């Protein structure tokens, strides 16, 4: 069975991040498997309207107001008319929302259910239960996920978290990890800093790479505390730190205070294609995150043949086999010890980069992710669409007050849908022609052959 799928999220290129590349890679692999995929996101600056990406991946940049870090203003109904129009003209069967922060995704799931379509949701992050903002987000998540066919999480820990947050049946939640494009993360033994070796030519020098946003949640305080101690204990260690953020100042101050300018290099913001060049310069990858659903960074690093040292938080313990990763508690002392052990392993040459690369290639591939996601689509395709009454009953169970409010919202949503059906009848919506992927592929192959000749 081939499906027409709409991926909906606030986060897509030109914005950079894990969700964005997940959407792109997953869509590409699904297209290769014969599905039709469109992506719906909000407009980025003057990038509005429809764009085509590789292999005819169609992206709708819907004009929408952005409030905070690329998340749109939740309007509940404002997005409905244009969303209905898009899914009708693209003949969408399944709506797949991504990321709990994205209000566009929540709204799309809500409206698609009202219009009697299948919906699923992928959660990419972890939430606590204690602070006010997560209580609010969790309630909203419970609202949208009350009536959904299936949920996908990126790790087992993330699944446990989502099940608790949205009060879901765990059978309804699948775990499908992220993946890496292994060919983009090949080790390069020649890339390690030759100048650095010249100064201390007694025995092997170790470069430690950090690549993340420099924010509190990524554990930058730990890093700031640990670097001077590591530098003091191991005279032949150098740090390269990629990324930018508010904690950069702390790192710079630490560098000033301990006079580590020659040993701690801050390279600033990185583009996606520069990450590999940074990673291959190092022997050890250090991740100090305080919370992490999956942590694609450590997989990319291991793929480049780096030994990973990471804090044992969230889904991190599930991601890599023991010989590739050394865990530390999120404590300064333990982190320093763990890095010490890693340096010892590098000195004893226990790490063979190309072996790591080959192993990771087997573990995480987008083809596998797409296959597994397809199974989810197959499963939800067989599911029955609940009538309005049943939907209302589900929302009513959300809470004493919330349940009633949600029911009102759904009832209004239903009325708006009927109104839209009357105002813009389905027959009047022009059907968009599908991108001829097979033909396009054949042409590409022919062109390649010509080039080879």
């Amino acid at each position, binding site marked *: 069975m081939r499906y027409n799928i709409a991926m909906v999220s606030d986060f897509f290129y030109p914005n950079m991040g894990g969700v964005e590349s997940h959407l792109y890679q997953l869509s590409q692999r699904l297209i290769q498997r014969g599905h039709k995929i469109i992506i719906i996101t909000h407009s980025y600056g003057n990038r509005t309207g429809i764009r085509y990406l590789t292999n005819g991946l169609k992206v709708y940049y819907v004009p929408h107001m952005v409030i905070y870090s690329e998340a749109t203003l939740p309007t509940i109904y404002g997005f409905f008319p244009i969303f209905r129009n898009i899914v009708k003209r693209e003949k969408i069967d399944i709506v797949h929302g991504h990321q709990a922060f994205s209000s566009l995704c929540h709204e799309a799931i809500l409206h698609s259910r009202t219009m009697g379509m299948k919906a699923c949701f992928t959660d990419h992050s972890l939430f*606590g239960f204690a602070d006010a903002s997560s209580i609010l987000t969790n309630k909203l998540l419970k609202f949208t996920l009350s009536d959904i066919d299936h949920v996908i999480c990126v790790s087992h820990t993330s699944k*446990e978290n989502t099940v608790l947050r949205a009060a879901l049946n765990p059978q309804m939640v699948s775990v499908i990890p992220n993946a890496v494009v292994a060919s983009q993360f090949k080790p390069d033994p020649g890339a390690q800093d030759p100048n650095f070796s010249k100064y201390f030519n007694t025995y092997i020098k170790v470069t430690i790479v950090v690549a993340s946003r420099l924010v509190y949640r990524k554990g930058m*305080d730990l890093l700031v505390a640990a670097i001077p101690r590591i530098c003091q204990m191991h005279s032949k260690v150098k740090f390269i730190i990629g990324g930018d953020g508010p904690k950069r100042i702390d790192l710079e101050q630490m560098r000033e205070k301990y006079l580590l300018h020659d040993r701690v290099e801050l390279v600033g913001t990185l583009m996606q294609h520069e990450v590999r060049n940074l990673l291959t310069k190092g022997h050890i990858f250090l991740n100090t995150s305080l919370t992490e659903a999956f942590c694609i960074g450590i997989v990319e690093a291991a793929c480049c043949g780096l030994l990973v040292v990471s804090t044992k938080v969230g889904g991190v313990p599930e991601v890599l086999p023991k010989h590739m990763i050394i865990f530390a508690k999120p404590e*300064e002392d333990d982190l320093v010890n763990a890095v010490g052990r890693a340096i010892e392993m590098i000195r004893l040459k226990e790490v063979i980069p190309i072996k790591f690369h080959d192993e990771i290639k087997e573990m995480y591939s987008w083809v596998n992710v797409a296959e597994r996601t397809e199974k989810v689509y197959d499963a939800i395709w067989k599911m029955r669409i609940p009538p309005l009454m049943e939907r209302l009953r589900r929302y009513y169970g959300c809470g004493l007050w919330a349940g009633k409010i949600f029911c009102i919202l759904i009832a209004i949503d239903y009325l708006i849908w009927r109104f839209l059906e009357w105002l813009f009848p389905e027959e009047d919506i022009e059907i968009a022609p599908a991108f001829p992927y097979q033909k396009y592929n054949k042409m590409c192959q022919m062109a390649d052959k010509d080039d080879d000749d």
Partner: protein
Amino acid sequence: MSEININFCPFDGYFLGDEDKCSFCGFDRIFAANKNWGSLTNSPTNKREPWRKLLWIKQDYPDNYVDSTFLEELEKNVNVRAYDYWAVLKESCVISQHISSIVIFIAVFIYLYLDMLSAQNLIISGTVFTIIGYIFWDKSISKTDPSYEYKRWKTAKGAVLFFATLLCLSPILKTLTKDTSSDTIWALTVILFLANMLFHDYGSENRTNIKFPGSLSTNAAIFSSVLLASRLPSNSHVFGLMSFAIEWFALFPIFRRYIKSLSVEFNIALTCLLFMLATVLFLNISKTIVILYILGITFITFVCPFWLIWIQKYKNEIHGPWDEARPKITTY
């Protein structure tokens, strides 16, 4: 891989007609046909490897498989501690103390306003009590921090300079909000004292290194005193009220914290003293307020601790590996 044709279930020898699964033991024929036979025959009791909470291995389980270990790491109410009624009752003293001190301040203002208390008396008693309080404070701090010796002179200089400035500013403070109607002043004062009460730093145990406890709270109290001062008849009244406000809202909480750290008995004694002072002062002003005040303090001291303990049973905290870790940093 070559496909193996299985006619009999390998575990119980049951003949498989065209069923996909052995109806006797649930053995999966299709699955077995594609599986590496070596491992299956070696461990016939273990049909499947146990599920592991890992992402990097391919497991023979569907993606939505729920293992018995699901939510094993969930912890409930780990940070909850059972409260003792009397301990909570003792802790509630800080709140009743603060409320009493606000009530006393308002009473003092009313006495000044109605000319039942002269400004001179207020200034003199305020100064005397401040000096006594300072001596206490000095005695305690010089024991723990010897370097404090040198700061004494500086403190005295600072105090003199501060009160001199206040004296000079009194005429300005007096007329600052003179044009505002009294109703507005009373209403604002009530709001500001409520803010003072809500934002006051009740929890802090630290006496030596005070990062100005709840500066919002202190500011609210001083602001309301400025508002009230504009209703007073003379400059000396204004100076009296303002200096009292500073002693009462900025310095007195430090002293109270000191008393609390000293001993529980002293703390209770101070609470009772403040309570009685407030009651006596307000007896001449309004009986209703005295009754309301006594009821309020009784409620806070005796009913609220019980309420807190009772409500504890509804507490439901969830912790697990998804929580944001708190970094532990030793150097700094």
